[in-house]
């Protein structure tokens, strides 16, 4: 049975696109046929994060307006079997697509794919409504900051009001060292405030920047902690029970991080 999952956040810059790219790649690597849809019309970015920017011929707006068939707009990622992208249009705006059109498109994609991942734009306007229209599930991305958590709370309320039930939280860019000294909200603090289930915690990791520079998702990097965390998220999406990485365990993690980045303990 195929599933449509929207990745959303409210606030911009918390890592929706990076999460979509990594989770999508992970799903394909695990043998599920997956398509990613960038719904951020006018500000498309999933194509560059995936390293597929030079392969775009048709986009989401072309598909819904009938300028091409769905198959023609699907960009196949040659590096990963079973991974496809439908890019957003860059020269149009969010009103170029309607929620009913997204539902129709996703219904068509369900026939072909195991997972349809929708990268939602920031905000709560039409772009958001388009992105969630066809979703069976939602992953809400946040970072441990007041602004991002506040917006996540608003998004959770809007998802529920729009009958996207049981959204799951993805905490991104957690810094164990800051949590330890009491200068960053912990996983428990955030869960306590938002009162929703957790699907993953991604540690702050320089490797994400490096992999985005190259257009190669970090999930492929066996040495990246964030990559490991994303692999766990993928397994949880597929229904596996995976214990959460331990961040609170004192030195262990910090030392590991420092070793990983070649920093000396001071």
């Amino acid at each position: 049975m195929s599933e449509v999952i929207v990745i959303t956040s409210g606030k911009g810059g918390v890592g929706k696109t990076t999460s979509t790219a990594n989770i999508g790649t992970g799903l394909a690597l695990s043998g599920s046929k997956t398509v990613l849809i960038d719904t951020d019309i006018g500000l498309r970015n999933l194509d560059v994060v995936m390293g597929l920017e030079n392969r775009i011929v048709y986009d989401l707006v072309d598909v819904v307006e009938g300028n091409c068939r769905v198959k023609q707009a699907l960009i196949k990622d040659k590096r990963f079997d079973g991974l496809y992208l439908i890019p957003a249009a860059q020269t149009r705006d969010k009103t170029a697509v309607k929620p009913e059109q997204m539902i129709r498109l996703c219904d068509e994609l369900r026939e072909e794919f195991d997972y349809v991942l929708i990268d939602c734009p920031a905000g709560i306007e039409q772009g958001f409504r388009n992105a969630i229209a066809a979703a069976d599930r939602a992953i809400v991305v946040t970072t441990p900051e007041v602004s991002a958590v506040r917006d996540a709370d608003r998004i959770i309320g809007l998802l529920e009001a729009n009958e996207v039930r049981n959204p799951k939280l993805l905490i991104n860019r957690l810094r164990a060292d800051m949590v330890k000294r009491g200068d960053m909200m912990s996983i428990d603090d955030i869960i306590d405030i938002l009162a929703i289930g957790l699907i993953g915690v991604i540690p702050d990791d320089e490797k994400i920047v490096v992999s985005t520079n190259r257009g190669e998702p970090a999930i492929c990097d066996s040495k990246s902690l964030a990559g490991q965390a994303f692999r766990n998220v993928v397994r949880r999406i597929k229904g596996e029970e995976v214990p959460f990485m331990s961040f609170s365990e004192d030195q262990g993690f910090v030392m590991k991080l420092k070793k990983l980045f070649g920093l000396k303990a001071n």
Partner: protein
Amino acid sequence: MLLDLRKIFGRSKSSKDVAKERLKLVLIHDRANVSPQFLEMLKSEIIKVITNYMDVDESALEIQLTKTRSDDGQSVVPALYANIPIKNIRKSGK
């Protein structure tokens, strides 16, 4: 360890506790704003109960979520504020 030292030297609250406290308060407001229906539902339920005992001016009834100082004055806590103009009190109830 660090936290203990802070206590000993009487340092202020950690910034994450401040963040958490501020968030909790702001979210009480946000959540009430997310669904105007919520306050409407609350309002109609309150009217239902109160009219068993007295006549109230339903059109002038005012309900809002707000903040107030806690009894010990140490922190700010959420409060439900209701202004219910009474027209007439019934003698027997019901």
